[in-house]
């Protein structure tokens, strides 16, 4: 019991299972195969973006710009494919590079000019969307390419393609954060930047890289978004940054930096989307949905905050061998 409460992975998982259980009970269609792959589709964009948010948060920063970056990148993508006639695979690579470029702007301002990331990325939140509106006279670009939709709506062995992307991306990200120098170093700079510098880590470069990674994650999100909607629009992605951050935080990432777990972020994203799905299936009005989602974020984080103490209480009752 104590182990479960203290384990970093199981707490968010338990929270999600609880949410899923409640939804399944109250909602007849929740466990339909169709709805489950529906869930996978719905979670995919925010889950991909949340990889970037988690990396930035672990590195001690925050990124409020991916929603706007996605707006800008879907526009760039749609224009490249539809008006400039650039082949889809090439356009995908270019969009990822563009996303890295946007991330590099945030990273440069934060890491090298030492402007707090909340500020740089709030500015970017405003500026990126502004730039998005400068393309195509501010109008969305519709019906980009019929092949585009397949990227999102296609299936393989009966399962939606985005599920494969998620599994692949999360595996890579989890592996990178756990088993590479880069990942470990990002935990270190988020935990104590001064100590990291004194341990020979290139703190600025690492912090820069976290934002670069977030930019790439936003670009991948933009590609999925453009594929889902077969269009680019300066209005896409509003508020997405908050869902992505909420996913990371529900998954136990701390805004103080140095703490967080990629896999838990996926569970966090799934929790948010499951709640929304359940509420939609029950036709709960958006106004009430907003209140409920707000409450769930608070409770999820609360459980994480209180977990240690709950564990402590139980620990006091059952002395642990390990601590002498």
């Amino acid at each position, binding site marked *: 019991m104590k182990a479960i409460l203290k384990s970093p992975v199981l707490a968010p998982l338990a929270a999600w299972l609880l949410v899923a259980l409640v939804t399944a009970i109250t909602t007849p269609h929740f466990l339909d195969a169709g709805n489950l792959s*529906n869930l996978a589709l719905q979670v995919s964009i925010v889950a991909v973006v949340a990889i970037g948010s988690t990396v930035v948060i672990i590195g001690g920063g925050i990124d409020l710009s991916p929603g706007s970056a996605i707006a800008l990148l879907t526009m760039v993508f749609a224009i490249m494919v539809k008006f400039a006639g650039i082949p889809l695979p090439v356009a995908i690579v270019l969009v990822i590079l563009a996303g890295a470029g946007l991330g590099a702007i945030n990273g440069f301002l934060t890491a090298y000019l030492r402007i707090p990331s909340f500020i740089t990325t709030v500015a970017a939140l405003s500026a990126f969307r502004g730039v998005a509106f400068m393309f195509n006279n501010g109008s969305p670009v519709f019906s980009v390419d019929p092949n585009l939709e397949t990227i999102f709506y296609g299936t393989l062995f009966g399962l939606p393609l985005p599920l494969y992307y998620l599994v692949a991306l999360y595996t890579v990200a989890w592996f990178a954060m756990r088993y590479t120098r880069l990942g470990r170093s990002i935990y270190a700079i988020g935990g104590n930047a001064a100590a990291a510098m004194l341990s020979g880590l290139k703190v600025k470069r690492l912090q820069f890289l976290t934002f670069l990674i977030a930019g790439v994650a936003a670009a991948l999100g933009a590609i999925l978004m453009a594929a889902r*909607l077969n269009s680019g629009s300066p209005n896409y992605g*509003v*508020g997405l940054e908050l869902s992505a951050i909420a996913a990371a935080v529900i998954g136990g990432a701390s805004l103080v930096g140095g703490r967080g777990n990629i896999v838990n972020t996926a569970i966090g994203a799934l929790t948010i989307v499951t709640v*929304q799905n359940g509420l*939609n*299936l029950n036709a709960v009005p*958006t106004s009430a949905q907003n209140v409920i989602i707000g409450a769930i974020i608070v409770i999820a984080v609360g459980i994480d905050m209180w977990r240690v103490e709950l564990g402590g209480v139980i620990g006091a009752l059952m002395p642990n061998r390990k601590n002498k």
Partner: protein
Amino acid sequence: GAADYPAAQPLAESAQADVSRLSNDGDVRIAYMPPATEFNYYIAIGEGIKAEAAANGVEVFMLAPQSGADINGQMGMIQDVITQNVDAIILSTHDEAAAAPLVARAVDQGIAVVIVNSDIAQFPTPVDAVVGYSQRNGTHALADYLVERVGDESEKVGVIEGQPGYHSTERVGGFLDGIEGHDNFEVVASVSGGWNVEGGNTAGMDLLQAHPDITLLFAANDYMIMGAALAAKALGKTDVMLLGNDGDTAALEEIAAGNVTATVNTSPFIMGQIALQVTLDALNGAFAGGFVETPTTVTDKDNVLPVLQNPDALYPKPSKAY
């Protein structure tokens, strides 16, 4: 059907679904899915739908994201609604292309899809019906009204646009088309008011400040012109003409009170009633498909009273009896 509506005009062939695949199973459940709850206009359409549904004894529910910018959210909701096997979806979206794959799936599953508040005859994938008014014709008529009303008087025009997109382009375009060729009209500035009262107020204040010679403000919706009206009043510019679009009840009351000059009354409540009727007729095999154009009228102080005196066809209800 009970509510009368004009005869449908045919849609492009590729845009028309086969209505005969539909049937009424006797237990009709309809989803009304506007792009956002933040625009009262869609609530008014929804109230019209609800009123007509109640009269016909069918069930409707509304599901929409809060923000009109949340296209992704709306797509998620459409997916969720398709999962539930409703009989019909009355849909309005800011992004037809995005909705297309989902609409196609709904149509395949035998769900009736009726697009509301649209004048796009060329929907990217087949649908059963389109119900709405012509955005461009509405504001063009408003410009015609204006040209007639001011005669040769010289007018300096300030334009308050919405956020860039189809609706803003069409409405502003219709208005500009209407005044084109009349040299006494000069557009001195065009700024965005973000569709809301707050933005309209700021835009109005800044426009009137930077161009004290403005005699006429046109805004792409009623909320923005109401915000601008407050700005004009605060600056003592009581003789500036103020024009909007929609026929929001509050704007009609402002017209009656003399604070706003005129608007394009697009009767959203009635549009909703018609949309529901069309949907039921389609399920019952009494509607063969096509675009149903709903009525619009340029409404000013002279003809606003009869509208306000018929609160049953308005949402929200007027704040007092007229």
